[in-house]
């Protein structure tokens, strides 16, 4: 790992972290849940906001090995994947703010964040729903003899849904160019996944289908990058699907207004010490990168995110007529 490559990865993680932190603050009071009332003043980000804070190394380490024309499907916790695939933070923030200038013209919000122009085919509000879509995209690339590949992100909770089994089987049967990435934060919404899962879990299930699989420390971006690098090379060489099992930790609750009090405080405390940004900073220091250089990156990213926030708050809302657009061509969108 060169200092240069690790700095690139660190910058990506810093962008995700600061984006998530800014979105979290902008969402306070946005939704009434977990016994909390919505605030009197409408939040800038309304509705459920699923933060990937703490999981940045997985998105950054995998996507750093993807080309622009590669495709990606994500989960409801998809800001990190979207940024890492090359989307613009300002247009993303505009979408979270529900503005007409957002990627989805204010029609999707956080849960459906997407930038098709960089191959990011969408976050998804349904757990595991991105898996069949990703296998289909990979199947299309194979049919069209296209050299690109697909990355499919999902959480450990998704491994108990049928489409997980169906999609992995499908990808292996047709030898599709797809990297399955299980971001294992060990919690299904608010319930620990192991208590809900028979057998040895995600990795064993992938192996049972004969898909070459690897474990990786999902909080160590260098490790994720190295493993993803090898796996994406194997896939590009026509080796069929690969399965990357990255163990990480979700620092926040299920949604931004969920304080996550159902978790053991000691567990959270220990996890915070293994913050992927702290791990990366230590590794950068060992490679001779000064803390001033790292701080300079963080400061540049802060400017980017501040701009995103300011632009989003000033951006125009959609108009009523937009509710009837982008539905279908045959018959279009009509009230009746």
């Amino acid at each position: 790992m060169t200092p240069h490559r690790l700095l690139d990865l660190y910058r990506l993680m810093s962008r995700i972290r600061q984006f998530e932190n800014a979105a979290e603050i902008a969402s306070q009071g946005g939704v009434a849940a977990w016994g909390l009332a919505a605030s009197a003043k409408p939040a800038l980000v309304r509705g459920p906001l699923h933060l990937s804070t703490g999981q940045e190394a997985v998105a950054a380490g995998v996507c750093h090995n993807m080309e622009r024309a590669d495709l990606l499907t994500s989960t409801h916790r998809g800001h990190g994947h979207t940024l890492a695939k090359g989307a613009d933070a300002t247009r993303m923030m505009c979408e979270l703010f529900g503005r007409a200038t957002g990627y989805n013209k204010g029609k999707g919000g956080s849960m459906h964040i997407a930038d098709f122009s960089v191959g990011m085919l969408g976050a998804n509000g349904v757990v595991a729903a991105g898996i069949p879509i990703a296998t289909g995209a990979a199947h299309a690339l194979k049919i069209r003899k296209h050299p690109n590949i697909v990355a499919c992100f999902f959480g450990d909770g998704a491994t108990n849904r049928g489409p997980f089994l169906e999609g992995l089987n499908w990808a292996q049967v047709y030898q599709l160019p797809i990297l399955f990435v299980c971001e294992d934060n060990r919690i299904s919404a608010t319930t620990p996944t192991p208590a809900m899962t028979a057998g040895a879990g995600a990795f064993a299930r992938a192996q049972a289908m004969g898909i070459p699989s690897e474990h990786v420390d999902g909080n160590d971006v260098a490790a994720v990058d190295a493993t993803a690098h090898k796996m994406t090379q194997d896939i590009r060489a026509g080796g069929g699907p690969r399965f990357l099992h990255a163990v990480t930790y979700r620092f926040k609750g299920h949604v931004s207004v969920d304080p996550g009090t159902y978790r053991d405080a000691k567990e959270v405390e220990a996890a915070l010490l293994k913050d992927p940004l702290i791990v990366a900073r230590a590794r950068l220091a060992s490679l001779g990168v000064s803390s001033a250089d790292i701080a300079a990156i963080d400061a540049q990213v802060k400017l980017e995110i501040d701009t995103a926030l300011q632009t989003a708050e000033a951006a125009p809302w959609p108009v009523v007529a937009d509710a009837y657009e982008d539905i279908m061509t045959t018959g279009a969108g009509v009230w009746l």
Partner: protein
Amino acid sequence: MNTTINTATKMTYADAACAALREAMLADPNVIALGEDLGRGGVFGQYRGLQAEFGADRIIDTPISESNIMGSAVGMALAGVRPIVEMRVIDFALCAIDEIVNQAAKNRFMFGGQGRVPLVARMPIGIWSASAAQHSQSLEAWFAHIPGLVVVTPATPQDNYGLLKSSMASGDPVIYMEHKELWGTQGDVDRTEAVPLGVGKKLADGNDLTIVTWSRGVGICMQALEQGAFGSVKPDIIDLRTIWPWDRAMVMESAVRTGRLLVMHEAVQVAGFGAEIAASAAEQTGCKVQRLGSPRIPVGYAQVLENESRLSVDKLLAATQALLKQ
């Protein structure tokens, strides 16, 4: 079969769909079909010969994985392929309801128009061959309820040819419902005749009442006409052909003229699409309305039970009389 035939040829309902798909596959290498048992021609022979001609990469035999068949078709469509998705029977499409309702139908809107999902999901409907409760349903109303979906119900070989071509060309996710009892029916197919989506077809002209039907209901109406069963009553009969978007103009023109509207479908009458048409016509024209559908019972196996869910000329005549007496 590469040259266009200008004269009509006799064809079955299944062969007409096969011919339409074949022509689309010849015209566009990105058109593919996927589903269970397609290599052997499909369960009803509607894909016969296509895998031999186009190969297993384009006529794709899949695992019994309805969620992934439908979900991967969404991903394929987003990545530039135009899939025809075979669900075998509509009852099995319920295993893929998230992929249809939350993914295919919503994609274009919720991503702000970034993507398109041009796919045709074929899900045969209807009572056929003592197939009981899980292989006999007609669920067009479910899908008509979902913004983003086109819903098509061809009743003749000509319409199965023409509507399948129009569906494939539409660029939208289309729920395409062939009726299982119609596969073997013969009819003239003129391949030069386009059948646009959203346009109904007049089966009879009259001024006494309007009958709106589709799919298997068309055959019942034709049977009644051939038998002279309506007697001196002259019905205006419309095959709707497309459930969404439905031909409001044709229905309303007729309802205004006759003042009476009967909607007939094999689907369960309660909350069926007939209710939407009846309510719309009553709101817009003040006409009297009557519905005829199946009772709200699962389709039974024994003939006497199955018949309770079937349409018949007798039921049609009883509903007609009830409407005329209103």
